[in-house]
């Protein structure tokens, strides 16, 4: 429908459907300048991690649009507060707001277009160490830095840290056999933490 509508205006079909999900998705992610995750709600959504993994060797900039109502969006928001992740991430605060989604696509396209324009720019800039650098090199360093932010995010949050965190919690869990006693109501708990009785 959209292709039929815009084919004449644009001179090409703006949507390509690749078919069912399979191993080829890695290649699709590798060539994609931007990824869109606008879930209303999602446990974690690992697509962004797979995208980072596929884009990490690309010299071109990447821009991810991510809903904060997915687990990964929630974590990105926390990291954005700490490190600043904009760009390469545009967070959707309300993925059900059509205008916000349109605006996010527009912003991503604008960032990416601006960055692309530097690739063919022959102008040069003086650098702090007296040497000169080209606009194209600036682009590469900016993209590399932005990709470093994403890679850092991915490195912090992987299967090993998840496994270790959960097993630490489970192995340090209280063993009921160690203190096997009846406790009167309301319950009195050891430790300095504040308690709330229900």
């Amino acid at each position: 429908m959209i292709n039929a509508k815009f084919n004449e205006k644009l001179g090409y079909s703006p949507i390509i459907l690749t078919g069912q999900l399979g191993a080829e998705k890695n290649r699709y992610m590798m060539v994609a300048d931007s990824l869109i995750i606008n879930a209303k709600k999602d446990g974690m959504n690992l697509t962004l991690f797979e995208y980072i993994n596929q884009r990490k060797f690309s010299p071109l900039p990447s821009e991810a649009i991510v809903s904060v109502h997915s687990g990964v969006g929630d974590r990105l928001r926390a990291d954005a507060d700490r490190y600043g992740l904009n760009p390469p991430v545009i967070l959707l605060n309300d993925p059900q707001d059509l205008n916000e989604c349109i605006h996010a696509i527009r912003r991503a396209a604008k960032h990416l277009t601006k960055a692309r324009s530097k690739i063919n720019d022959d102008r040069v800039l003086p650098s702090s160490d007296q040497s000169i650098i080209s606009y194209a090199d600036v682009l590469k360093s900016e993209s590399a830095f932005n990709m470093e932010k994403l890679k850092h995010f991915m490195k912090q949050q992987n299967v090993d840290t998840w496994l270790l965190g959960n097993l630490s919690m489970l192995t340090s869990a209280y063993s009921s056999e160690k203190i096997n006693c009846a406790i009167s109501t309301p319950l009195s708990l050891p430790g300095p933490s504040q308690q709330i009785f229900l």
Partner: protein
Amino acid sequence: MKIPESLPYLPDHQHESSAIKKTLKRSNSLSKIESQTETDISFLNTTHAFDRPSLKSLVENKNIIIVSNRGLSSINNTLSALPGGLATAVIDSLYSISKAQDGNQSASWISWDGKNNQTQTGVAVHYPPGEGTNSHPFNVHQFSIEKDLLDTFYRVVNNQTLFPALHSDPADSEYTRSIIPCSNADWDKYEEVNGLFAQYAFNCLSPGKENLVWFQDSQIMMAPKKLRTLIENSDIQDLLKDTKIGYFHHMTWPDKQSLINCLISRDEVWGKDLGTGLRRAVALANTLLQCDALGFHIPKDAKNFVSLIEDEQVNHHLKDLNDAFSIRFDGSNNTITIAYNNVHKNYHEVKIEAHPIGITANNDNIDLGKTESTADAKHEIISQLTTRWKEGNELGINDQTKDVFLDPNTLIFYSIERHEPNKNTNLRIDAIEKYLETSMPKNKIIFMMTLAPTKKSR
């Protein structure tokens, strides 16, 4: 010309640790959590390096059993997991555990056999495949579920009721209306299948050894209670006392009222029963309270679960089952602990923490970018899609579109489309359409979409 070497660096772990420790100092009680914003409770995330023990010390001399609904698609020939991040994460976890245990095969994976109708127990699987020095074996147990029972357990209850209920949002009435409530009889079958998972986990326990049983995700949420009951009723209860039960919730945990509303049974819709939503929410809360440790991806989900326990109605029914309980927050360990006397009047504690999952870092098997240029990858994609969509197919790609796709200046946007209400596909397509209507971008843009199978179609 050279690229500047002095790129700004991200904060290292020490800076991060001190920032987090400061945050923790400020927040030492659950009452404070309540009054904080969502962003502020991010300190509950405990994946910080500063106080983490080694995996070896955690798994040494322990019998570790991971239980999930889905497992390996084939345990004889290949190690490819069924689609999904969970199965992949379990394989990677078992590999790490097995490696840390020096390959002494004390780690097991229990799952449904994925329609293979091939119950197999204790098959040693090497990962990565082969028996080289980098390959470490773990045991795989898969069991069959009778077809009708499986259909009710998986399609009717999990996919049509539980999954949408766990993704529900009180503000989204359209979503709520899309849920197909399952009947009381269907729910009983869901519990019955959960009993099978618990029974297989029970069979894998090592008497006299420290057992760690770790259940994965909502399909088997009722299994922890069933396993606890099996242990308590066992003749060798004393030999199994060193068994700890964990559960990780891979989905979101919704607002309590939304969950109660969305779990309502079909019998109640027809006026044949009352209070089924509350009863089911209480059952879910009760089974998870039998665990020793509960994991969620993000603090917000953990907090929503605790809110359910605190809910007056739910709380009232839990007291009938478990006596009084209390909740405390320990800022030094970023842990919420729920403590209560169980039905046997024994003290029990459940630890709750947020541990977000990711993917295994540096998985070289899928790093295409190392060996393939973007231009080559684009040509390969066009070649594959041309073969896939034969001439005349409405999804076929015309020559102009091929040229635009291959042009290095074209911007490619990518999304994975799964027609499930929580994925918000319709709005994304509307946004693309409106964007194309209202914008004239300098560079040409192509939106590439991949279709993923829906829960209902599996």
